[in-house]
């Protein structure tokens, strides 16, 4: 079979693609505003929005690439990829590059590579493969093996330290497990056990991570320290009120009171400038986007495709929940970007590729089984 079937082109999920385009457009537009820094002599523009556009273009190519082949071929790639990922993660502490106190990157000469980005994809593939196999709800043994496979890379990532990505890996896997469904008695046990085990994580956390959590619980204790991010972000979003301060009019961002305004707190810039009205539109677009992915998972031709789509769903869902929750002061500060809105090269490319994977599953939903 030729990889590209003419019929498939008509089956592309244009709604999902359209929502992706809308989110990306808003993201670039918002980065344009977030790039402005007002100085005494005028507004100085940084070029984040241009770079983001280029990442988006590369991402688009990646997305097309991820649509061409039949997704079922990935089934066999899961284990080798898992092995490579673990090796790279183990290599990071030895040969990795230290940036801002965290050792997350491996320098390949031409480009810097972040193995933790790969880990998310690997866990997604492996989770889809493992969980699409069983017939009944998961039992303890199955659950244990799946989680053990997830914990291995997660611990390595948290130790880098990169709490956000590490948690995301676990949450993604957890989401997939819930998607499959587990034995009711197991579910109940976990509901009791997890809150008991959670405090143990406290001892794994670095000092700055502990401070972030404490200041989230009470931002006023240290308004200029760890609480600063949350406070300034809430001020930015809150002062947007109903219709916002207008495009390029946000004082919190332009005068740099808002930290990390290109990356983790980019959506706060949007909230400040477009207000409640703009934020509801953006939130609706995100929910529409997630809904479309959920629909693909529901309508997929086979369980593997369904699990792949569900994995991507959780990948975006957790990031949206954590990032927006953080910006609105509902979640402690963790370095999780908002897909398509936050600036970031590798993240943008990965996001496009994963949407490509979902579109892949979606457009092949009417094909007859060939194997």
């Amino acid at each position, binding site marked *: 079979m030729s990889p590209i079937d003419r019929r498939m082109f008509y089956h592309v999920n244009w709604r999902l693609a359209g929502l992706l385009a809308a989110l990306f457009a808003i993201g670039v537009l918002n980065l344009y505003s977030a790039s402005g820094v007002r100085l005494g002599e005028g507004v100085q523009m940084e070029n984040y929005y241009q770079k983001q556009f280029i990442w988006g273009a590369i991402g688009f190519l990646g997305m097309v690439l991820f649509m061409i082949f039949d997704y079922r071929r990935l089934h066999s790639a899961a284990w080798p990829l898992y092995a490579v990922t673990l090796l790279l993660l183990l290599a990071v502490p030895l040969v990795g590059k230290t940036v801002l106190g965290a050792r997350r990157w491996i320098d390949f000469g031409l480009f810097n590579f972040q193995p933790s980005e790969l880990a998310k994809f690997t866990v997604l593939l492996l989770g889809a493969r493992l969980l699409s196999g069983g017939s009944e709800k998961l039992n303890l043994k199955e659950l244990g093996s799946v989680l053990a496979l997830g914990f291995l890379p997660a611990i390595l990532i948290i130790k880098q330290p990169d709490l956000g990505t590490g948690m995301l890996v676990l949450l993604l896997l957890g989401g997939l497990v819930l998607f499959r469904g587990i034995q009711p008695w197991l579910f109940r046990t976990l509901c009791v056990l997890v809150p008991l085990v959670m405090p143990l994580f406290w001892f794994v956390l670095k000092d700055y991570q502990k401070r972030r959590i404490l200041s989230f619980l009470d931002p006023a204790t240290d308004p200029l320290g760890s609480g600063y991010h949350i406070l300034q972000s809430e001020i930015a979003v809150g002062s947007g009120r109903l219709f916002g301060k207008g495009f390029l009019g946000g004082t919190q961002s332009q005068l*740099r009171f808002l930290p990390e305004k290109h990356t983790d707190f980019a959506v706060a810039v949007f909230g400040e400038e477009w207000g409640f009205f703009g934020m509801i539109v953006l939130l609706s677009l995100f929910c529409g986007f997630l809904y479309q992915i959920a629909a693909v*998972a529901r309508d997929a031709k086979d369980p593997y495709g369904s699990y792949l789509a569900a994995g991507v769903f959780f990948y975006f869902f957790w990031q949206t929940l954590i990032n927006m929750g953080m910006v609105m002061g509902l979640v402690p500060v963790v370095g999780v970007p908002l897909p398509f809105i936050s600036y970031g090269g590798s993240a943008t490319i990965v996001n496009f590729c994963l949407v490509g994977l979902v579109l892949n599953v979606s457009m092949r939903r009417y094909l007859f089984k060939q194997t």
Partner: protein
Amino acid sequence: MKNLLSASSQNMPKHGAALLQFLVLGLFCLFAIRLWYLQIHLGEVFTDKSRNNQLRIEYLFAPRGFLRDRNGELLAVNEPAFALGLVREDCEDIPATLEKVAELTDIPLERLKEIYARNKPKVKSFEPLVLAPDLTFDTIAKIEGVSVRWPGLEILSRTRRKYNYGHLLSHVLGYVSEANEAEMQADPTLSLGDFVGKQGLENRLDDRLRGTKGKRLIEVDVTGRRLSEEQQGEPKAGQETFLSIDLGLQQLGHRLLEGKSGAVVVMDPDSGEVHALVSEPSYDSNMFTNGLSSAQWAQLRDDPLHPLQNRATQSVYPPGSVFKLVIAAAALHYGLVDPKETVNCSGEVALGSHVFRCWKHSGHGAVNFQRALVESCDVYFYRLGMKLGVDRMSAFAKAAGFGTPTGIDLPHEKGGLIASKEWKLKRFGVRWTKGEDLNMSIGQGYTVTSPLQVARYIGAVINGGRLMRPALIKGEQPQVTGQLPLTQEQADTVKRAMVATVEDPRGTCHRVLTPGVVVGAKTGSAQVVRLTEELRRLGDNVPYRFRDHAWMAGFGEQGNKRFVVVAMVEHGLHGASGAGPVVKAMLNALFMGKRELPPQDVAGAAEPAASPAARLEAVETQFPEPPQPLPPAFVEPPRQEVTPE
């Protein structure tokens, strides 16, 4: 694990899809509610906070209004001063910087640390904290030289109040000093290092002199860098104010009293404007602008001569025979005296077992109303006092403005005391005695008045009975605060008697006779202690602190021009010799333009000695010889002239 891998791949999750849709719905609801809460419910709060982030308010300095005397002479101006400030946000190492500052300015490090700790909570971010208020040019040059290596140090250009005649007018002008915590709390436009009036007119006219600061809204970014400025209101300089004080007259009064303690008041009886208000000893108003050291402050405060005290308004003294002018007027008012009727003065009056003596032990013989004032006959007034009784005396004295402050624009004015039966019973639990009537009638006993009150009363006697509020600002609408309960005729009777006191060769005030000017006056020698026989035998050699206070209250009239002059010299011994020359010199200056010192009988003071004790000693030894009684003469005042009372 094997079974997972090999399992059939034909099971679609049953509830999975529903779970995903539920999650999407939950996400939307959670964030929509949170957004509503932040942006709509708390929107206003966060808008305020964002404006707080973005905007700083800067107040623009308004120069303090100049003060001039009535002829336009500058009394208080502003001069540039340079202070050393520290902007903490720009400073890299505060302890090290403080050490450097200590080295550059010679201020001890402990003191700098203390200043820093004290001011730290008061200074807003990016505002300089003043470490040293007044820098010399040498120090400025040294600091500028190293400022590149010590970020955060800033030379602040400010203005400082400068009093051109610091010693001369300190009791009138008062002084300014840096605003304290409470003042800054009360007025948000005041910031650290701003000057506010603390004493005298500077205090009373503070609102008018301080002007209005301009306001500037500054947009800053997170580093405090200024991005834009918006002016909201220009600074408005404080109002320049012309005082009623005549600098030349003030200067003269100051020199006349040099080395003594006392006060001089010159007042226009018609407008109430005060042309001179001298209080000696004085201090230099400039001392306060840069902050006194505690040693300087202690020296001022503990000086036994109390230089901080304004003796014209804040000190009250027994008025002595000056008070006879009040008793005489009271007797006229109550119709208890016929001015033509005479009383025989035998030199004493007996009341019960106690004998009250006239100052002239041999007696004045037959004295009528005018003669009693001219020669200050005590016996005549003892009899008036017996007739009037305390209640009428005190009622009239109060109506004449005694016992209450005059309302002059100076802080902490004293009202003095006019006793009454009720007052004594309440204060001491003892009833008023008849003998106290007699004491009161010659201005002794409990009665105390300030020199300014006496001036106001004399003014009312000659201006038709109007009690004027003494004014220190030139050209203000005169304020009448009361009316003497005297008919014009009665007032004229008192006035005529005062004139006779000067013009009659036997009059106690004959020495202040001034050619071409109608002068009226009355002396007073107020006992400070009850004289024992031992002290009395010493005559004029009594120790300084037991000597009588010398008073002279008078007026001069020439055409439309008339002035009240009151002089009070603490422990000046005799009214005529102690205070008379001061009045005479003032009258000369007022009416004859002679602004020089009279012959040395008053201005004999040596250079003021350094320590308060030495100064007291100097004052005590000022009268080396007992004054010799000589016949009064006008043209050439003799060296030591005494008109005893």
